[in-house]
């Protein structure tokens, strides 16, 4: 087990910079998720930690060593690929034991290690099968088993659940999380799925275009996103954004005023701001509420999603209570002023 520290890490491909000086500290035993839209550089960053991509500038520390010039095998890491990358011509046991075989371990010891890992992942009945004889979820588990057998300092996961169907993804999500709790190893996990990030991470690193947008615990990112991008990326359905003007303690959209709680607002009067409110922070109220013109109603059973608009701006609300309003009708809602996120329209940074 070890900590991983990225110091001003950069990646330049033929004069195009794709990673712009990333600084991230991953503590020993922490589960860190790198999340962002495709092309944000999260996989590249992971591959740089693994040693599969050259580090153009900056330093990567694993434990107390700088690993920049080390080959992947010397970094004491294990990686689980999106495609699983199982060797098709080897049995499950051979796949899992391959790294130990490369290290020159004795056959009996390899067998013991493989069986130990197989037991953790319930792979024992499958050890003599070939990858082509396994289902997607089983292959996924073998890929994890191959990583566990090595007992590495750091586990790296590159979108390991993307090839699974939705239901299995939820199951495997739980298994990986349980594995982390059991092994207590440092894990770095790349995904584009913010739900995966939220449910699994101790710490989330949100990336965009090769920059780190925010680092923090899942709930910290959810409750206090540092900028518009993080606010929009984390959470599903996404946060509502209403652009307006800040004046005398409230945000004005035309002549409708939206409440802002007494949190200190570092915005000067008349400034253009984005008013952010999460869908679940809307509540149905009596006649004095804001008029939400309903367009679409999506009942999920436990809650109902309502898509509509307020003063011409699109708003989504999530309500637990039932109501009778139909599409085309008006639902009176109020915003929870303590849950308001204010962003500067120009800089897109949080200002409350």
């Amino acid at each position, binding site marked *: 087990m070890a900590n991983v520290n990225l110091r001003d890490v950069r990646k330049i491909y033929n004069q195009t910079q794709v990673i712009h000086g990333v600084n991230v500290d991953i503590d020993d035993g922490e589960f860190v998720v790198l999340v962002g839209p495709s092309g944000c550089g999260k996989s590249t960053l992971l591959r740089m930690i*693994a*040693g*599969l991509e050259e580090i153009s500038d900056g330093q990567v520390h694993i434990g107390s060593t700088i690993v920049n010039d080390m*080959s*992947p*095998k010397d970094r004491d*890491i*294990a*990686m689980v*690929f*999106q*495609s699983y*990358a199982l*060797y*098709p*011509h080897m049995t499950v046991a051979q796949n899992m034991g*391959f*790294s130990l075989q*490369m*290290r020159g371990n004795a056959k009996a010891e390899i067998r013991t290690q493989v069986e130990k890992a197989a037991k953790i992942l319930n792979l024992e009945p499958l050890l003599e099968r070939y990858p082509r004889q396994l289902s997607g979820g089983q292959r996924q588990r073998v890929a994890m088993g*191959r990583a566990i057998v*090595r007992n590495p300092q750091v586990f790296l996961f590159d979108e390991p659940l993307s090839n699974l169907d939705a239901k299995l993804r939820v199951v495997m999500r739980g298994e990986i999380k349980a594995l982390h709790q059991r092994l207590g190893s440092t894990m770095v996990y790349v995904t584009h799925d913010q739900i995966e990030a939220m449910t699994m991470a101790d710490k989330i690193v949100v990336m965009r275009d090769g920059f780190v947008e925010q680092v923090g615990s899942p709930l910290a990112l959810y409750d206090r996103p540092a900028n518009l991008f993080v606010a929009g990326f984390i959470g599903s359905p996404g946060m509502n954004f209403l652009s307006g003007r800040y004046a005398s303690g409230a945000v004005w959209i035309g002549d409708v005023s939206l409440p802002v709680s007494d949190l200190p607002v570092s915005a000067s009067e008349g400034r253009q701001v984005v008013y952010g409110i999460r869908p679940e922070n809307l509540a149905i109220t009596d006649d004095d509420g804001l008029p939400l013109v309903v367009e679409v109603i999506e009942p999920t059973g436990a809650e109902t999603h309502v898509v509509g608009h307020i003063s011409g701006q699109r708003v989504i609300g999530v309500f637990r209570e039932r109501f009778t309003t139909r599409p085309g009708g008006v639902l009176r809602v109020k915003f929870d002023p303590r849950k308001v996120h204010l962003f500067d329209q120009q800089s897109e940074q949080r200002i409350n």
Partner: protein
Amino acid sequence: MSAIESRTAMSAPMQSTSRLGNRLKQVALHTAVFLLCLVWFTPVLSLFVTTFRSESDSSRTGWWYAFIEWRPVLSNYVEAIYLTGVGRSVVNSIVLTVPTVLGTVLFSAIGAFALARMRFRGRIALFLAMVGFQVLPPQLVLVPMLKFFLALGLTGTFIPVWIIEMGLTVPFGIFLLYGFFASIPSDLVEAARIDGASEPRIFFQIILPLSGAVLASLAILQFMIAWNHLLIPLIFLGSGSLSPLTVQVASLAQTNAGGLNTLTAATFISVIVPLVLIVTLQKYFVRGVLGGAVKG
């Protein structure tokens, strides 16, 4: 009549016409294949039958008479193998072909692996040059090669034949394997790298085991080429005691030493090895050549 019933009633005659059309197409196809087979196999059959006929039979009647009065003799084979040196030249052919095949497969695989999986300067240029130079006829290099091996004193041995046969096929071999190696997912190679495998280990333990079919098809191809080559062994080995089947049969045809039926027996011996090889290994051959053509 309900809607469903009327639809069934309407589609029934249409279905039977299309079934008839399919049937006709099939008959035409089978006829064409049968005719092609006839054209291809009649000479082979005549050759085969003649090898079992005595010289006197052959001089009196055509080969098809063998089916009317079947009097097989083995004397042609005995004569071909013992008297004309064909037996020895079968061994020579094997000694010539097997190392050539093994070398071609190994060197093509190494070359293709380097071009497909390693990053170095001039990689693309090298690859293009290799593909491009294949259009040059091999006769072009024979004189310089002969001079070269004469200077080394290696003519009259198998070494120059092995080297030249390999040299002529390896570029094509690299071209064939390159596409296959390039299609092996890079994740596999990277996983092996993380697992601690060195490049030679990746080559021998990951890439080669996954390439069995395409390697087999290259091997079969090279076997046929090397087995059937006349010019190169003739130049470098002469028609002496080291000459392979092709050279031996050719000289037999010129000298007419054993008579026509002995010649046919000798020819058939030279054909039988590649024939057996192709028939038994054809599934690898087809799989290898078509490999990567469609998503598997």
